[in-house]
């Protein structure tokens, strides 16, 4: 293939090198500096896609990120990217792309039948039909619609690339590196402040690269190159090409995406594909330029019909002729500029058709006063029909038509905080309003300054005012300073199938129908017709729709208003928002001090929040987890077991008011707890519901160690700080979390004391260290440690803690000391079984809706003191006679299971919600009792011991008869604890 439309000289492409690429199976050649669209056009390919609804053939409308039509599936395999704009895809060697949204080939798309049916498929047609028979929607109509809809395809393979996130700080962020942005950057950069200059393009310079103006003696592009070189030399300026500022967030935070590796075949190893930057800036100059808008003409969507400025860009920057014969349809002087540029490149101008009677004349080509009223060409433009002001019509052969309907400032980022743009009559366009995001100023074409000289001036001024700089603005070379000369013209009278939104196939006819049916608010128009909801967010379509709506409603365009611009500025890969947080790195892991040791033992681990805890320790010959767990429970209850309980939250509470503070946060009393003793504490939320439970150990008069459940460590700490700082600011109490500072092991079972006596340096006999005792001790001949005689299992048990770095050594020591008693490490499953056997409430019971009463601890709520939650816990709805009470449940048939989540019903009577009496919270097999047991909540449960009930789980098809029993299945008197 030859690059038949490549102009012989000029352009900002590197002709010395060639890239080979593939589109729809055909291999072409282009040059570094090309986009996929420019390279395809150079090769004479202008059919690049199909529209969403009617599957009309489409080529590029633009040469930038506002492109609605030329969307392709870029790359293949797991890296396939649907809906990728050919107009911004930087060409690289080996690029692979294919067209999308077609059934068959791009040239013969079977779904183009929709175009023939377009009379039936008008705006909103689907709201009015497909209702009968009702069942057909999901089965027939919807699948058909879904398959026809959608644009490109995902590969459905895991994205193999990585994405980074990063954080940048600056004094001035400049968005856009066209003339205004470069002028702003030069001004601020020379003043020495920290500047970030970001531009979505891979080449800085903006429209200077696309135009033939000179700045002084240099071409615009050369001047831009020179400025960029100077900026690069300044240490306080960070230039970020290929970086789109996607959104403006509160207080000077901007989101920006840098495409680090999208212009290469595959990212280098370890390097990200893209980076999501969070930019913190004091001030921002928005210099995002402007977007040309098309004119609605019958059949204005054929490949070859483009924005005039796009044709100009392809010719000047990429050295590509859109066709050998080009016509221009314009309502302003800028259209003529395109014609002049093309002519200078040797491209034949079929004519410039200008709607204005006073259009500038040319000696080089014909200027027609009139309008384009129709176009021809099945897969690409072949001719246009022109209606002259005189009334006669003419057919002009041409392969490209440039449309120039004026320019819309790119105000999007000014609206991300719900600011509304205002109407500028001279430009017939919306320009930024007064309510800009704090710290933002707007410069250049984005502010309505359309000339090059104006852009330079306003860029420099914006930087100076943003930074409060004094003095003169830098001098810039002389540049074009022409005024805007335009006659508002939106659509050709009488047109019907004239496209406004090319991607979503919204035509003038649809807007008229929408108005006819009462969808007259601009938001209704958008939602009913889908105008502006395509991947370009209406950048080239919204204004046309608004103008027609205004005319139909007899209003002005600003009276009709605009819809709201939402971030991101251009569609942004979901992957980059996810950053590194995927797979195993979704959340950080927390490892217990015994993790490495447990791993050596072959432990199976389970996620508990971010923690990984040993769930059980399988031994050779054990084939099911139950075998391991049963063994661990029996071994612990029979002799001694050890479990890492470091994950429980620990808060160090010190100060002269520490005891009084605990009185506030726990519903039960702590003031009189002796030094050297530990007490169970129940913490309520202010609404009287149980928040958390744990223990508080009084190590000294003014020093407690409070434990929380694993899951609640953080919220409880936050709550304690709230109580300390906001409610009782003059209490002398200091808090600090020490969860990770100590490795803590539970050593439980009748032989636990014997094991620990070999490790602990002090006397821990029952007399010296009774149940609920606590102390600072030393172990192994001098290492500082803490010992608590508390038990979750119901056995004689201790928790022993050493500084975390010694945790690994201590577990090994305990195992060594316990060897003679066959000490058994146990995991969270055995821990769970033992606490259910003992009737201790845990997370399943403390589910955020249970009261102390429900838990059978109603009497713990002291009425003699002020504590969080005590008052609201007295509300009538929380103190009903038939309230839920925690009970034990066992099956009548001892072989049956009593699964958690089952509900409790009377033995007779209906099984439905109205007769629901309670539910099972936790269940397990008790190896000690030899049958399943469970904890649950039952209405008035404490009065119903011995009652038989039906346990039902229709979800899992279980129904079994159970007996309500005490929740304390093992050692109800607590003799073992105190042994």
């Amino acid at each position, binding site marked *: 293939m030859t690059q038949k439309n490549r102009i012989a000289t000029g352009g900002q492409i590197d002709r010395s090198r060639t890239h080979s690429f593939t589109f729809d199976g055909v291999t072409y050649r282009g040059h570094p500096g090309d986009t996929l669209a420019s390279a395809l056009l150079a090769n004479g390919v202008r059919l690049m896609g199909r529209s969403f609804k009617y599957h009309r053939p489409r080529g590029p409308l633009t040469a930038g990120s506002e492109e609605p039509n030329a969307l392709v599936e870029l790359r293949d395999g797991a890296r396939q990217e649907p809906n990728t704009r050919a107009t911004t895809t930087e060409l690289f060697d080996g690029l692979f792309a294919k067209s999308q949204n077609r059934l068959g080939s791009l040239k013969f798309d079977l779904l183009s039948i929709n175009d023939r049916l377009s009379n039936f498929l008008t705006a909103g047609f689907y709201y009015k039909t497909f209702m009968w028979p009702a069942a057909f929607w999901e089965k027939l109509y919807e699948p058909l619609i879904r398959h026809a809809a959608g644009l490109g395809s995902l590969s459905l393979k895991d994205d193999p690339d990585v994405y980074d996130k990063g954080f940048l700080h600056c004094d001035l962020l400049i968005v856009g590196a066209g003339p205004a942005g470069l002028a702003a950057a030069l001004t601020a950069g020379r003043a020495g402040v920290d500047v970030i200059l970001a531009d979505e393009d891979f080449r800085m310079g903006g429209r200077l690269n696309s135009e033939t103006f000179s700045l002084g003696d240099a071409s615009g592009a050369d001047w831009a190159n020179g400025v960029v070189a100077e900026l690069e030399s300044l240490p306080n300026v960070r230039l970020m090409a290929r970086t789109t500022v996607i959104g403006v967030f509160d207080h000077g935070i901007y989101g920006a995406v840098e495409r680090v590796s999208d212009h290469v075949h595959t990212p280098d190893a370890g390097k*990200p594909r893209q980076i999501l930057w969070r930019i913190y800036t004091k001030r921002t100059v928005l210099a995002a330029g402007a977007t040309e808008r098309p004119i609605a003409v019958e059949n204005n969507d054929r490949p070859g019909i483009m924005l005039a400025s796009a044709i100009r860009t392809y010719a000047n920057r990429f050295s590509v002729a859109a066709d050998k014969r080009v016509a221009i349809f314009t309502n302003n002087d800028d259209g003529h500029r395109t014609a002049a540029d093309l002519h200078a490149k040797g491209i034949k101008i079929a004519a410039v058709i200008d709607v204005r009677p006073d259009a500038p004349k040319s000696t080089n080509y014909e200027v027609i006063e009139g309008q384009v009223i129709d176009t021809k060409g099945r897969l690409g433009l072949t001719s246009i029909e022109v209606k002259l002001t005189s009334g006669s019509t003419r057919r002009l052969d041409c392969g490209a038509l440039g449309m120039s309907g004026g320019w819309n400032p790119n105000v999007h980022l000014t609206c991300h905080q719900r600011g509304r743009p205002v109407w500028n009559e001279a430009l017939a366009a919306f320009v930024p309003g007064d309510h800009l995001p704090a710290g933002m100023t707007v410069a250049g074409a984005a502010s309505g300054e359309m000339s090059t000289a104006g852009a330079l001036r306003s860029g420099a001024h914006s930087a100076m005012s943003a930074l409060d700089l004094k003095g003169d603005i830098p001098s810039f070379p002389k540049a074009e300073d022409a005024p805007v000369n335009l006659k508002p013209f939106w659509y050709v009278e009488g047109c019907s199938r004239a496209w406004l939104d090319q991607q979503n196939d919204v035509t003038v006819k649809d807007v008229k129908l929408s108005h006819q049916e009462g969808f007259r608010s601009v938001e209704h128009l958008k939602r009913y017709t889908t105008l502006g909801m395509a991947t370009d967010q209406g950048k080239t379509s919204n204004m046309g729709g608004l103008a027609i709506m205004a005319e139909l409603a007899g209003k002005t365009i600003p009276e009709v208003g605009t819809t709201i611009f939402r971030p991101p500025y251009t569609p942004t890969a979901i992957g980059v928002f996810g950053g*590194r947080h995927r797979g195993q790195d979704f959340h950080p892991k927390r490892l217990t001090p015994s993790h490495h040791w447990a791993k050596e033992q072959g432990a199976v681990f389970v996620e508990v929040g971010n923690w990984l805890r040993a769930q059980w320790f399988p031994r050779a010959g054990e084939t099911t987890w139950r075998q391991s767990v049963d063994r661990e429970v029996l071994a612990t209850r029979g002799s001694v077991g050890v479990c890492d309980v470091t994950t429980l939250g620990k808060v160090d509470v010190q100060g002269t008011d520490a005891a009084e503070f605990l009185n506030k946060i726990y519903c039960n009393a702590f003031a009189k707890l002796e030094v050297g003793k530990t007490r169970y504490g129940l913490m309520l939320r202010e609404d009287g519901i149980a928040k958390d439970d744990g223990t508080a150990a009084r190590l000294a008069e003014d020093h407690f160690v409070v434990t929380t459940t694993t899951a609640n460590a953080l919220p409880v700490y936050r709550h304690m700080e709230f109580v300390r700082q906001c409610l009782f600011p003059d209490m002398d109490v200091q808090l600090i979390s020490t969860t990770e500072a100590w490795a803590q092991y539970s050593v439980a079972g009748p032989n636990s004391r014997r094991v620990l006596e070999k490790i602990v340096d002090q006397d821990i006999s029952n007399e010296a260290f009774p149940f609920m005792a606590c102390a600072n001790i030393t172990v192994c001949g001098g290492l500082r440690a803490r010992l608590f005689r508390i038990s979750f299992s119901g056995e004689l048990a201790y928790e022993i803690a050493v500084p975390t770095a010694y945790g*690994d050594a201590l577990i090994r020591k305990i195992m060594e000391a316990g060897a003679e008693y066959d000490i058994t490490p146990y995991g969270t499953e055995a821990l769970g079984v033992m606490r259910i056997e003992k009737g201790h409430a845990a997370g399943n019971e403390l589910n955020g809706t249970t009261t102390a009463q429900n838990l059978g601890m109603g009497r713990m709520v002291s009425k003699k003191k002020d504590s969080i939650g005590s008052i609201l816990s007295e509300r009538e709805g929380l103190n009903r006679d038939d309230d839920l009470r925690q009970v034990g449940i066992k099956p009548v048939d001892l072989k049956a299971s009593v699964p958690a989540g089952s509900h409790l019903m009377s033995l007779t009577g209906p099984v439905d919600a109205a007769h629901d009496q309670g539910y099972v919270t936790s269940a397990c097999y008790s190896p000690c009792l030899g049958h399943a047991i469970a904890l649950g909540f039952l209405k008035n449960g404490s009065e119903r011991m011995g009652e038989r009930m039906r346990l039902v789980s229709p979800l899992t098809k279980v129904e079994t008869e159970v007996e309500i029993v005490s929740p304390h299945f093992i050692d109800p008197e607590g003799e073992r604890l105190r042994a």
Partner: protein
Amino acid sequence: MHDLKTITALGGSEPRVDTFHHISISENDGLALASVAARLGSEDACHKTMQDLLGAVPGPGEAVLREPESGFWMGPEQWMIAAPRQTHELLADDLKTRFGGCASVTEQSGAWVSFDLVGPGLADVTERLCAVPIRKMQAGDTRRTMIHQLGCFVIRQADPHHLRILGPRASAGSLHHALMTAAQSTA
């Protein structure tokens, strides 16, 4: 004397070091740490003791980088004191004695993992990790911030290419992984 041996936060017997051309990431296993919080009404006495200990009382966002004891501000009337573990294994006990009744002292040695990032790529690496204004930070500037969802302290050391990061010890592996990927990304 006890015979229990420590392991490093990453689980090794020796601290881990990873070297790239622009940055080195070293696990620093040698820190003893303890927090000191002034008792209500004893702030002046606490400050005075702190002054004696460090030569200055670190203000918000500040660290005093001294040998052997250094210290940084953690929160209102609360500081972290660090010292070499080899010589200050019982740092918390020593501080308790020193501060007496004017402060609450809590041992923190086991709670943290420390990494030293050193090299000319420091700013680039840090910008991929957290929202601290690394290029503006001066020696002693200290920030608590989030790295890979982990609450960390970052402390600019005297060498402009040296940053110390303290992170939650239980997540040392995840934090190290985040540091390594940032280093690879910017290599």
